[in-house]
């Protein structure tokens, strides 16, 4: 891992299109400003892990399993409009 020391207002660049600026250092926290092109996804690490896990959970929805669920609840397709988000 590359480790750099920066002060408030100083920046680092990653490639030609990503620039990260230290905008504030306070109470053990660092506030960062990030400039990048639109096609770069920027997320807090813990949020990315949450989404990865949710995507994996959704992947388990095999067609056979969904048909099984539908067959157990004959009116499910009509009733789904009243289903509340549980995620």
């Amino acid at each position, binding site marked *: 891992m590359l480790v750099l020391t920066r002060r408030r207002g100083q920046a680092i660049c990653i490639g030609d299109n990503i620039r990260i600026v230290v905008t504030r250092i306070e109470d053990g926290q660092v506030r960062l400003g990030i400039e990048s092109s*639109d*096609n770069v*996804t920027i*997320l807090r690490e813990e*949020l*990315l892990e*949450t*989404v*990865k896990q*949710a*995507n*994996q*959970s*959704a*992947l*388990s*929805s*095999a*067609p056979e*399993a*969904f*048909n099984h*669920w*539908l067959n*157990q609840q004959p009116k499910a*397709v*009509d009733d*789904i*409009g*009243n*289903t*509340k*988000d*549980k*995620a």
Partner: protein
Amino acid sequence: MKTYDTRFGPFSIADEEVWHCIAPMPGFTDLQRFALLHLPSQGPFVWLQSLDEALITFLLVAPEHFNIRYSQVPHFAKTSGVPMVMVILPQTENGTLQSNSLAPLYFLPETRQFGQWIVEHHEMPTEPLSAAHLPPAELQAQIIVPIQDQSLATGTA
């Protein structure tokens, strides 16, 4: 027209009907080509089928079915689009469907592109949102009808 292996059996789809992922799904960032498949018996639900990995499918539905509304659009949306959410099947016999509401997918029919974006806030109105009994027509999901020899008859929703 090319034939792909899918979770539903061999499926033929024209190049112009393939959906391209421009904002990759975390955990599945290598997958770029997909088809939207619809079984008429499954009402408003559609399957996002990977054309790169035959065993990878996601069940999708319009967010209104979970009483969710997204007021923002993702950064990659240059044209108007259609949000959809991934459905997570219950792990227990009497469980309910859940949605991956944190990370909806956004489809751009004009360019046949889509991506996943992460939202930290979404609206859940107290009054139930109206929800259609079919997938959004703009998505032009491919209708699949399993027939006896395990291959698939196709059409467009």
